[in-house]
């Protein structure tokens, strides 16, 4: 099949990618845009490692066709820090709390958590746990993650 031109916005910058019509958003990001932060853990939308944000909403990028983001805003973990390089509050809290172990689920987890805080700036513990329930982590047991997201929410309110 001939490749198609995908015009979209990735991490705030206009992007023009040449992709197969059957390419997933995850493949387009990783293989064509060379943004390998989003990971493939299952390819069937069950693990959340590929989570990115499309128009601010978390999506499993392995289940979305790349061409579906034509004209939309895509944000990946690479685009979460400020332009001056300072980490997003969720990223900073993950570092401080010693959350990442193997790190493979972390980009997807952070994209879910940051989207949650956009939608709900002061979530309860239960809301945080539900907000990241689509992201599997096998290393951490989630305890430090929940504490870090909770602290990031507080930091966001104060900031």
């Amino acid at each position, binding site marked *: 099949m001939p490749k198609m031109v995908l015009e979209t916005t990735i991490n705030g910058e206009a992007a023009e990618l040449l992709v*197969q019509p*059957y390419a997933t958003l995850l493949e387009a990001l*990783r293989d064509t845009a*060379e*943004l*390998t*932060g*989003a*990971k*493939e*853990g*299952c*390819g*069937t939308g*069950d*693990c959340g*490692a590929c989570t990115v944000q499309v128009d601010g909403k978390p999506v499993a990028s392995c289940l979305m066709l790349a061409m579906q983001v034509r004209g939309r805003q895509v944000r*990946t*973990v*690479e685009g*979460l*820090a400020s332009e001056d390089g300072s*980490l997003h509050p969720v*990223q900073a809290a*993950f*570092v*401080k*709390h*010693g*959350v*990442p*172990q*193997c*790190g*493979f*689920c*972390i*980009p997807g987890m*952070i994209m879910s958590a940051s989207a949650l805080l956009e939608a709900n700036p002061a979530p309860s*513990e239960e809301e*945080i*746990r*539900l907000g*990241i*329930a*689509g*992201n*599997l*982590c*096998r*290393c*951490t*047991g*989630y*305890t*430090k*993650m*929940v*504490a870090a997201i909770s602290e990031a929410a507080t930091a966001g309110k104060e900031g």
Partner: protein
Amino acid sequence: MATVMKTSRDVRGIGLRIPRVDAPEKVAGKTLYVDDLKLPGLLQARLLRSPHAHAKIKRIDTSKAKALPGVRAVLTAADIPELEPGAKTRGHAMMAIDRAVFAGQPVAAVAADELAIADEALDLIEVEYEVLPAAVDPIKSMDPKAPRVADEGTEADTSEALAHSGIAPTESETAQNAPNVAQKSNLGRGDVAAAMAEADFVLEKTYHVPMVHQGYIEPHAAVADYNRATGQMTVWATTQGSFNTRAEIADILQIPEASIKVIPLECGGGFGAKIRALVEPITVLLSRASGRPVKYVMTRREELEAGMPAPSVTIKLKTGVKKDGTPLALEGETVIEAGAYSGAVLTMSGVFLASVYQWPNFQVTGYEVLTHKPSIAAYRAPMAPQTAFVIDSHMDQIATQLGLDPAEYKLKHLQKGGDLMAHGQPWQPNGASECLQALMEHPVWKGRDEWRASGGKNGAGLRGTGLAVGGWVPGIQPTSASVRLNPDGTLTVLTGAVDIAGTNQGLALIAASAYGVDIERVKIVTGDTDTSPLTGISAGSKTTYTVGAAVIEAAEDARKQTLDIAAGELEAAVADLDIVGDRVVVEGVPDKSITLAAIGKKGNTFQSRVPPVFGTSALGFSVQAPAFAAQLARIEVDPDTGQITLTDFVCAQDVGKLLNPLGAEGQIQGGAVQSLGFALTEGLMYSDEGRLMNPSLLDYRKLTAADVPNIETIIVEVPAPAGPFGGRGVGEPPIIPAPAAVANALQDATGVRLTVLPLTPERVALGIVANGGNGH
């Protein structure tokens, strides 16, 4: 052996609550995993796998696949002369020769320009199978007439047992009349029959734990680049031990180790499954055949169908005790289902059954049985969670039925340092009792009667509390390390230890404390197999215990060299020198000092006569340091649906000495949730034909953040005499106790005793109905 280093003052080192140095790049998505690697001309690989658990391969035709544009290599067993019948391990059996022995065994491999082309090529390969009867149930597979799994003359593989615990079967034999029994072990002491006859209370139960997948989120992956000009191959691996991966590739492909360079990239979770070679040999062969670098990443479905899961375990246990509970005799029979290739940690089961609690008379038999399923590998404390589920459920029932407090009963009979283990070696000092006591003091345990009494009222479910103990005897392996002083006054610590558990942070803290500088001056590097000192696998809860000891010694060596040079430069006695901040000072002479940077520069200056500071260490070990944990579960059970909700979960663990607090807590919390996965949801389910029924993460349920409460950690410190600063292994103990703790809590809540994992709503609800409906 390293001893505790005496520093004259505090440095920012061990015990400090600081985040891992690699955390910022991990949260930014910048960490490189194998699948993130790109090389010029990189091909993508796919494997064609047998859909049948047991089948003769009558014909394979790859001609159409080879003709597809973009396909660069197609391999079947016929193209791989290194393959031999009687394969001992999964690595050796990377491709079925003429008989597939589990559903998911590769029968052909393709490398192509794109994944989509490789996928299309798989569809074009024609394979004609003759389906054969399969041995699917491990107990039936022990029948002499069961369909045979291994080729005749295949040897059992005990290397996994040695890697993890250093305990291989004491008495190993292949039963002549049961071809699928790969190994047998037998441990005994005293007169079991006589003691059992004297018992006032005999309890006999059969327990079962299914196969579970280790569940790392990063699938197995490899990139291989074979250089046709030099014959050298480079392998980028997600591995728990790069030297082990190199050795296995060399053994399987019958080539010298020196021709292979393994570069370990960040390992996205291993938990025991990324020790043995699985994807590396075939990826190397595809690169050799195509002359191009090749990447192979397993899909999740392949992981679940054809990974290397933990074995299914069936244990029949009979105990006899006096009226007051005093243990008299224990008789156990363990059947470990290894899948199609041998490799179980067999004897550990007997050791844990008979000697975590002390039984004066015991006989424990173990069988490793082959079936037509994917062969197994280690999963974090292999065999310990399964065995602890059995013995700690059993101890709880004995106590409950004799009207004793289960925690006090367990505490009374728990092993203590010096007691003999089932295989005759003494337990080394450990904190098992201290962990249990810590939980017995916890409000959740103290409040168990109130919690139970509050159940069933005001719409609440049935409520219960349970605890369990579990331990591990960590492995040991020789290792080496180097510590270098750089011209800028910082230290570089180099080992080959793959950091699967935050160990690099711990090693950096250890180096800082042993040398006498703050952690900020220490950089830790994991090298590849060409450049790093020989280092063992990261497994068996032994990285900090062994590599840490080598890092202490190398750092002390570097410190001594530094002080020797400083003594010459400052014209002072070494005994009067100390390292403070960024310099070496002469005690009592404030203005006499030399910076570490100056010493480092002298080692790197043209015409300088001062040698570089380069501390080294190479160590072997003989003493293992057992590591114990105890866990406490408070649960609520919906009597109608059988759903168990965890409301509180507490882990007490003996870490010897807390070196890296954030890392240790993270290990304990993560291990606990894996342990709870064993308890509540996980199990690979097979059809009667040996096909996996739940090959996706939708159907193979791992616990999410919404399924578990905060995991509370209680750190217990009983120093390990030979451990670095007294530290002992942390990684494995937390995965052990939860299944028994939750099963014990379930009985406390409902009166229902389940002996089969996982404790699914269906099993719980049926148990409640069988018990009379209301749970009590």
